């Protein structure tokens, strides 16, 4: 049960992720500064939301070049679970751990609201506590969440059952993402990137607990 949250200068959901992890795992995660190049042995790594290095280049592009990302990539290669939320998803696509890119929202504006999602697959350590087709609500809060990949890649993601979450139809899609994609898995299914914020939907005071099953699923997956 060793979890970690990577902290970049400009991360701002690192504490929120840590609170959700501690609630689920009963133990506080390691908070790992971006300059670290050696990581302890871990079961789960979270790349949190925020504006890493200010995101003055493409979102996530600078973080993808940081020392800690080399270590994260190495751990992912060994099968350690990695989840990138919001800016973390952008970092994962910039590093090439996940395919595609996150472009500026189709509406060109930052958007923060609750969105309805459809669980695309229950077959992953992250979504095992959900049922495929289940409708869940989580917030989004981003400027660059418009997922894009070429048709071949999109077909492959769908063919390999790697779409973890979709926005529940065109009305719910807040950013123009291709095929309403909100979150995707890597081939090995141990890396998840998603724009919605599960850590902001784990407590009834948040107005909903649609993200809680993700953390509960991870607890089971790590224990298994």
């Amino acid at each position, binding site marked *: 049960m060793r979890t970690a949250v990577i902290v970049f*200068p*400009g991360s*701002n*959901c690192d*504490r*929120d992720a840590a*609170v*959700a992890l501690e609630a689920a795992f009963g133990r506080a995660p390691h908070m790992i500064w971006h300059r670290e190049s050696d990581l302890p042995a871990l079961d789960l790594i979270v790349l949190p*939301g*925020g*504006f890493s*290095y*200010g*995101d*003055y280049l493409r979102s996530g592009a600078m973080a993808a070049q940081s020392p800690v990302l080399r270590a994260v990539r190495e751990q992912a290669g060994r099968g350690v679970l990695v989840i990138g939320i919001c800016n973390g998803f952008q970092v994962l696509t910039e590093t090439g751990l996940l395919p595609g890119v996150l472009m500026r929202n189709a509406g060109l*504006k*930052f*958007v*923060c*609201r609750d969105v309805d999602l459809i669980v695309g697959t229950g077959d992953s350590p992250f979504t095992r506590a959900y049922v495929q087709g289940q409708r869940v609500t989580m*917030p989004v*809060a981003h*400027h660059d969440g418009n997922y894009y990949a070429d048709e071949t890649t999109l077909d492959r993601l769908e063919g390999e059952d790697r779409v973890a979450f979709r926005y529940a139809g065109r009305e719910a899609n807040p950013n123009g993402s291709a095929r309403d994609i909100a979150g995707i898995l890597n081939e090995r299914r141990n890396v998840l990137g998603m724009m919605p*914020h599960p*850590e*902001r939907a784990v*407590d009834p*005071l*948040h*107005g909903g607990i649609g993200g809680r099953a993700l953390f509960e699923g991870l607890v089971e997956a790590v224990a298994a």
Partner: protein
Amino acid sequence: MTATAAAVEITPELASEHGLTGEEYAKILDILGRAPNITELGVFSAMWSEHCSYKSSKVWLKTLPTEGPRVICGPGENAGVVDIGDGKAAVFKIESHNHPSFIEPYQGAATGVGGILRDVFTMGARPVASMNALRFGSPDHPKTRHLVSGVVAGIGGYGNCIGVPTVGGECVFHRAYNGNILVNAMTVGIADADRIFYSAAAGPGNPMVYVGSKTGRDGIHGATMASAEFAEDSEEKRPTVQVGDPFTEKLLLEACLELMATDAIVAIQDMGAAGLTSSSVEMASKGGVGVELELDRVPMRETGMTPYELMLSESQERMLMVLKPGREDEARRIFDKWELDFAVIGRVTDSGRLVLKFHGETVGDIPVAPLVAAAPEYERPYEETPKAEAIAASAVPAPADPVEALARLLGGPHLSSRRWIWEQYDHMVMADTVQPPGGDAAVVRIHGSGRGLAITTDATPRYCLADPVEGGRQAVAEAWRNLTAVGALPLALTNNLNFGNPEKPRIMGQLAGCVTGMAEACRALDFPVVSGNVSLYNETSGEAILPTPVIGGLGLIEDLAKTARIEIPREGLELVLIGATAGWLGASLYLREIAGREEGAPPPVDLEAERRNGDLVRGLIAAGRVAACHDLADGGLLVAAAEMALAGDIGATLDGAPGDLPLHAWLFGEDQARYLLAVEDGRAIVADARAQDVPAVAVGRSGGDALTVAGGHTISIGELRRRHEDWLPSFMARP
């Protein structure tokens, strides 16, 4: 003195260009015993600007009550501090960035947010929520959309990046703001009550340390610009607007809080308006000490900067600190970790003078005490605003169909949904937002506890214009009421006084009246003022804004399980109106928007009734007897009922007017001290209220999917929602 300083000849004309009057310039000659050099002139001009000296408003500000059992620190520091129990304190303030936001809306608004965040974390608090009060010109004015779009993006751009939720605010359109928009930003932070940081420098010999961004030529004379009227050429003042970098501010926030966890800091002050000048002078003045600065050590973004520019730059994301001796290396390590500039640029002295050096030469030498104490303070002449006549409800035409009038109000510029705005703000980051924008007050959880803070911003400028005293009372009462409506105990407030040119007696009368009314309400409601800001000269070509005293209220919720929201949660609830209704339509929204008249005396505020009614409502919420609660404000009873129905997506029925009150006065009157409750046990609540001398009456019930009034008039919730949600996005998308 150096060649640079001596090169500029100081004349009364140059002093006048710096915004100093002949009399003020004479006072400078007297204080120095000689003519100032250009750097010194710049320092005096900034410190004696309206923005920094409050010279027109100070005599009135002194009349506001600033003390209370919860107050840890009142006005005068970077922000106000109140005790919120459990060893914690809330630190909060509101501040304007009106002039810069008009000139350059994105950066003006963004740096307004950055400035108020810095005021809060300078005192050792982690910011937990921001709000804003916005006033724009008429929707028909050609610049309005550009300004709305830029200001909203700027507020979002800064707050979203630094990761502090923007949890609400207000946005109002009126032609009086065509040439002077208002952007008032408020931030609330939480600190340990015994770890508050202040700005009084102490300990001669202690190092003065500069941290944060480098200094550039941006924002020079911002404080002076904000202290004059605009003319047609105001857009040429763009170079005086600063440029914000929220990423650097995020680093500065984390670095400061990390250093504050040690005991290395003696004093700390952010560099806001008038930059290094006001920060160093205020620190020296508060500590009764002197300061010597070596300006060539200031980290610079550009080459060839002069002492004058270094002292007056308003580059953002900078702090000035006094450290304990020998703690520089420890502090430097923290700022290195966050990749921020860190430079020892001077020291505290016992001379009582601000001494400025540049490459070893003295380029400025001013005694601090007279610089601050002799700052001008004016008792400007003022004219009381003539009383407007009360307008009888019978003199106001009734609408053909009250629900169509409602739909026009809710689907118009004033009351339409602000979703288009607040969805551009990350209002949930930090994962403690319990009541998001859209309710009476926003509620954020005190991290790691079951308690919460309620936050609101309020002002009703059309009331203030008609009767400044009543308008001042009402602004405070409404903030208090909004906090009460979510179940919070109002603790204290911060205020932002936005007015026109104080040199005009008519405008000064508005300011004096509003402050007088505010002070009365603060006393009656035990709701002290702990911080604030004044923005004057909001005039263009002689046209002043409406008097706009914005109140930022803070309340405490002891148990987040016992709060109220505006949404009607289910069918079959009774609607109970708390407070007396006379059907006051003078200066009402109905009168302006439906009858097309802006006139009449505003509704009177009975502060005793306000308190009695509010205390009752808060008690009912705490007892778990209230399923939904909404305060009555613009548009009165029918608007409140409709907003509750829209929020809960459940219909409601309102009965007809009691007695011989005209229906439109009953539905749209803006009598104060009223709340609409949705409850299970209406009869018992009415009885309990009356037993405490609080007027209460059952006025309807929840149910169905339409809003129905007085048996006949009806509109579906779907149609009402469409019109309510449609106006702002359509307006902003207009080709």
